[in-house]
């Protein structure tokens, strides 16, 4: 049994301004931030996105839904198709699914079927589908047949409870926006008590691996996000008062930076598609810091980290995390990257 992330989850702190690293726990987060800073979280709830299905010819496949349902109430989703088997087989070892045809009917549960609407040019495993139910009946069926997406490192099935943050609302995410999982109500209250504000956005965080090299290279795929007016106001007020903006999760970085780019240099509220890919060359315009999981160089999230710190410090942080046995994956340990977070720490980074 893997322990659930909580206040005691280990936190690797990286201060790019001073080139320093330090080991803390999530309980220390409020003390690492300053009054007037703003944390922005992704409040998407995690879908039961993994559905076992059968093709028209009777082949077993697995569908992993990419949220949200679009348009709302239509029964339409984008999905990645996996071959036979389930999460207990490592993603890269899963057999390829048979190619699906447009118009093909997929059987999920006795009363739950779907029709393939289109295949992506990116990969024939990326499809648009429409369930033959919609509204409350569809949601009831999805929660009856679907399970949270999970990976082989954890053998026992994950309950839906294990993949929701404390503040989850609309079910948009294919995988849990996991950076916020250790934010307990106790930490949220402690942050508020230090005058550290918390704002929300909703981002349809997608899959972290598909088993298809072509598709994996294109990750993260374009994803829906929605930024409320109140969050835009909070960002502007924080900036005006000299506070820092700390994103909780890479999906929040992507949503905010995409919205800034789309607004031609002004962060604007609303619902859009994030297609921005954040690389080490990206100049961050909204976000100052990031609370995220422990990422490895082979992950799509890793290149995003390069936007927050120089290559040498990123490599050093990665080696440090490995040497000190920080756990990677989405139910693992955390990393705070924030300039000025370790003003008094002895310089450790080479």
């Amino acid at each position, binding site marked *: 049994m893997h322990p659930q992330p909580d206040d005691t989850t280990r936190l690797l702190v990286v201060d790019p301004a001073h080139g320093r690293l330090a080991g803390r726990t999530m309980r220390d987060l409020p003390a690492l931030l300053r009054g007037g800073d703003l944390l922005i979280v992704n409040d998407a709830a995690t879908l039961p996105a993994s559905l076992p299905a059968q093709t028209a010819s009777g082949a077993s496949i697995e569908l992993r839904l990419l949220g949200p349902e679009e348009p709302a109430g239509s029964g339409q989703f984008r999905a990645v198709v996996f071959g036979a088997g389930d999460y207990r087989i490592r993603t890269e070892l899963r057999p390829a699914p048979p190619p699906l045809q447009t118009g093909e009917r997929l059987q999920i549960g006795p009363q739950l079927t779907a029709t393939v609407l289109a295949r992506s040019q990116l990969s024939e495993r990326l499809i648009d589908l429409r369930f033959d139910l919609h509204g409350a009946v569809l949601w009831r069926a999805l929660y009856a047949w679907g399970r949270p997406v999970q990976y082989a490192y954890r053998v026992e099935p994950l309950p839906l409870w294990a993949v*929701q943050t404390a503040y989850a609302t*609309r079910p948009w995410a294919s995988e849990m926006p996991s950076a916020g999982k250790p934010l307990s109500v106790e930490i949220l209250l402690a942050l508020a008590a230090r005058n550290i504000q918390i704002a929300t956005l909703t981002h349809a965080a997608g899959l972290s691996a598909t088993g298809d090299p072509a598709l994996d290279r294109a990750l993260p795929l374009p994803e829906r996000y929605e930024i409320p007016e109140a969050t835009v106001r909070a960002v502007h007020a924080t900036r005006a008062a000299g506070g820092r903006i700390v994103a909780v999760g890479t999906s929040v970085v992507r949503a905010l930076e995409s919205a800034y780019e789309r607004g031609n240099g002004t962060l604007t509220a609303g619902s859009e598609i994030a297609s921005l890919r954040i690389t080490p060359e990206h100049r961050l315009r909204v976000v100052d810091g990031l609370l995220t999981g422990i990422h490895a160089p082979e992950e799509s999230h890793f290149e995003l980290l390069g936007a927050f710190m120089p290559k040498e410090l990123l490599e050093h942080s990665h080696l440090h995390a490995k040497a000190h046995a920080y756990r990677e994956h989405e139910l693992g340990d955390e990393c705070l990257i924030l300039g000025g977070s370790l003003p008094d720490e002895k310089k450790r980074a080479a």
Partner: protein
Amino acid sequence: MNGLQTALITGGSHGLGRALATKLAERGLRVVIAARELAPLKAHAEALQRRGLHVYAVQADVADKEAIYPLVAQATLLAGPIDILINNASTLGPTPLRLLADTDCEDLELALGVNVLGAFRLTKALLGSMLLRKRGVVVNITSDASVQPYATWGAYGASKAALDQLTRIWAAELPESAGIRVFAVDPGEMDTRMHQAAVPDADPTTLAPPDDVATHIVDMIASDEPAAHGARLEVTTWRNRHASAA
């Protein structure tokens, strides 16, 4: 309604839950009602929808831990993030009620499962979101059986006493500045299906109509002087105070 826009009411197909849904929807809120049986729930939601009110039905058994997130997700999709949670679903266990010493172990577990664990889990699933929006009201429907040791009301009374204590502890843990209010309401004796099952020979003219009780509870949520954080309020006391003040 003080900026409150949405409500989720458990046990929403009959009695007090049904009346609360009507009153809140009439005040312009988007209301989700949940219950185990879909047919009466849907009938009530559809009747209110025909009046142009925003009421949605979601089938869920709050005693089932795995039903909680499906309920929260569907409620949020239908109505938006939930501002008001009314933990109203309750079970007495089998009737006629029996002495505590004669109560089956499973029947006490059932009462605790619906009346305590159901309320706890649903509140747990919604509090974080309320906290970030700095807007939330949690109303736990209790009973005088939580205070008075009525013979044969053991399982129900013990479960409601536990719910009262959860209410007080939530209030102690969440500062007023968090923007969330948690309180318990004893609705008094009402002319409902549950009361009929518990006390079949009661004179209905001595029982309060659920509509009347629901009006007062909506008042506790939304009046200029609403119920205090952590309070345990009796509808009869509230009614008398507000009647004499008027």
